């Protein structure tokens, strides 16, 4: 397989994952804005931060964060490389580049994703249409994933796509935790205290985990449990532990496929071990923020090393 193709697949699925996560963040932000009376726009700075779109927003819009500005920036602004619209186009351009590696179904679903979103995001989204548009984004992304699961051979092509998916997802979950860690933190000291109901719901909603959490822990939302769930629970498909497991599996299949272990595999093992070998109490004691900062750094390094080892660019 061409190195360029591996890179194209990896980025195609990173973009797809990111656009879906952005939609989810907006959904959660909108929800919280609607349920709180005062300082609703404060929430959007946090959402922008979680989406990794804050710095760009400040440049484009200035200091004042508004709901409309934030949503438009994240969904459809041409100047925001991580806007959903730009992601859909970038994912499709990557798919075009790697067209020969994709099944017809996967190509058609990613092409339709772009065609649909291009139309849906052609104009500023009025508030009443927002829920529908956000659902559409998640749905289209699910179609691509479905086509991929149902039709792609489980070979190196699939593995690079999966590695991209889970590196992006781990990154996104970690960012959400990092932006919101202060919500979890103060009350974490007071064992057994329930944190702000709206805030924790928002965190869970951002990763589509309300139902899963309730199934596991019941109605009581304690910060410790939420952190545990989003970081270390291997059943939760957006947790750091789950993502690390998948990245390690898929990198591992490449070792089997190509018969060669490369530096990225060592990095991956180290990061997985680091993530998994602590209990949540230890992590909180060490400092949640510090832990997540280290995790994000190591994850970026792993992504970079994978690009080098499998000759994405040179």
């Amino acid at each position, binding site marked *: *397989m*061409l190195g*360029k193709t591996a890179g194209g697949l990896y980025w195609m699925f990173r973009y797809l994952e990111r656009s879906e996560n952005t939609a989810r963040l907006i959904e959660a932000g909108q929800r919280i804005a609607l349920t709180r009376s005062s300082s609703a726009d404060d929430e959007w700075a946090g959402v922008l931060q979680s989406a990794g779109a804050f710095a760009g927003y400040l440049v484009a819009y200035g200091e004042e964060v508004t709901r409309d500005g934030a949503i438009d920036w994240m969904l459809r602004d041409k100047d925001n490389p991580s806007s959903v619209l730009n992601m859909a186009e970038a994912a499709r351009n990557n798919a*075009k*580049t790697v*067209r*020969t590696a994709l099944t017809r179904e996967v*190509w058609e679903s990613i092409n339709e994703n772009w065609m649909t979103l291009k139309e849906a995001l052609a104009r500023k989204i009025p508030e009443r249409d927002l829920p529908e548009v956000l659902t559409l984004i998640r749905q289209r992304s699910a179609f691509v994933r479905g086509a991929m699961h149902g039709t792609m051979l489980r070979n190196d092509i699939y593995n690079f796509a999966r590695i991209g998916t889970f590196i992006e997802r781990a990154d996104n979950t970690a960012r959400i935790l990092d932006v919101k860690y202060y919500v979890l933190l103060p009350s974490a000291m007071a064992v057994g205290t329930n944190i702000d109901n709206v805030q924790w719901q928002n965190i869970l909603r951002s990763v589509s985990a309300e139902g899963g959490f309730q199934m596991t822990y019941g109605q009581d939302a304690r910060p410790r449990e939420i952190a545990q769930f989003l970081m270390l629970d291997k059943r939760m498909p957006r947790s750091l532990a789950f993502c690390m497991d998948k990245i390690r599996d898929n990198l591992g299949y490449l070792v089997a496929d*190509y018969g060669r272990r490369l530096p990225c595999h060592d990095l991956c093992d180290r990061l997985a071990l680091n993530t998994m070998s602590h209990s949540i109490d230890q992590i909180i004691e060490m400092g949640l923020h510090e832990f997540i900062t280290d995790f994000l750094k190591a994850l970026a390094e792993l992504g970079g090393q994978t690009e080098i080892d499998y000759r994405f660019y040179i």
Partner: protein
Amino acid sequence: MIGQAANFVRALVVSCARASKIGPMEAQKTFDEMWGRDDSLRQPYEDFNAWFTAEDAARLRKKQAEAERLFRLTGITFNVYGRAEAAERLIPFDIIPRIISGREWSRLARGIEQRVRAINAFLHDIYHRQEIVRAGRLPAEMIAKNEAFLPQMIGVTPPGGVYTHIVGVDLVRTGPDEFYVLEDNARTPSGVSYMLENRETMLQMFPELFSKNRVQPVSNYPKQLRRSLAACAPDGAGEKPTVAVLTPGIYNSAYYEHSFLADKMGVELVEGHDLRVVNGRVAMRTTEGYQPIDVLYRRVDDDFLDPLNFNPDSALGVPGIMDVYRAGGITIANAPGTGIADDKAIYSYMPDIVEFYTGEKAILQNVPTWRCSDPSSLAYVLDNLADLVVKEVHGSGGYGMLIGPTSSKRELEEFRRKLKSRPNNYIAQPTLSLSTVPIFTKSGLAPRHVDLRPFVLVSPKGVDITPGGLTRVALKKGSLVVNSSQGGGTKDTWVLEE
């Protein structure tokens, strides 16, 4: 100008005689491939017509819309340069097939094979001893002064002796048995993916038509292409030569076709930056390091192929590939320098070229061509300008061209001046009455002008011609422009079993 697209999206450059004018060729009623000249159903269309008559028009309209949706979903689009928004457009597809009988086709196929063999022999000769010039059948300046002649190819024999691995021969029809070659495409002919997808779409939408009519399949083309390319691999490539398709990238107008062909052949689709010369071989960067390529089906023009040997600014090619090529380390398909064979000035010599290399009369006719470099021809052309089509020798895409019957007095005068000052730069052809095939419109069937591009594969093992080819149709009434950027469309082309 739409750059690379020019090869495929091109105006039909032979215009139609008007009924009111008596041109150099007797004007007569246009030949319709379904209804003939006298509204009597022609035999190849009998079964189709029975089916069509029984069909409900509303259902067909729905099918026509469905076809468009299918094409858009598959991404069969072409890029239009210079337009940032909506840069991708569909080539309209018409659901009425063009039907050619088995008998008609076998004659055409013989003619195409003869022509393509002659073109290959001509290219070998031109880059070696130039016997045809020595024999006085082709003026030396036609070669020496021709921009399409590539000095870098002098004395180079490509692996297997094949120059034009893939050829598209553009044909027009004027009567039941009258076909003319409008143009040869010996560089990187495109459009074959439309031929294949058109059939695929028809099979999906009207399966019942194919059980009634015995239509010769076209779906083997990618397999044949791969086999044909592999058969041209350099010596020492081994049992299974590594083939790759070289594309300028996703923004190229024909990118869809490049990826389509690579996909269907099961080979890598590479760009210049994936390739590098390693240990005297052209190699592609894979996830496991550099892997040598034996046969490169390039869809990049000669000029951009190698910045060390041609255009130094090209980022689309591979530095040093020509050196590997000359040393026999890789097959480039089509070979560099094949443009000399489809040059418009050379075109007028094709009947001689066919005869010179095959020893037979050309089966397929050329459109009669006056070379304005010849004083008596020039005189004739100037006298009959209003009835002729005048083309620039090196022009393409229908630019710098005069269509006499539809031009104003002022335009004619302007061309008269041009012809007198640079006669060598022009050729002239009569206006032909091009055949029509019905298309499906809101008010039923309506005749439209068509042309045909059959696709030909050449290898040391032989010549393969896919039955049919790509039919392009001018969708506007009376129009002769099949150019897809100006309202041209395509049709499925059927060759019936004999």
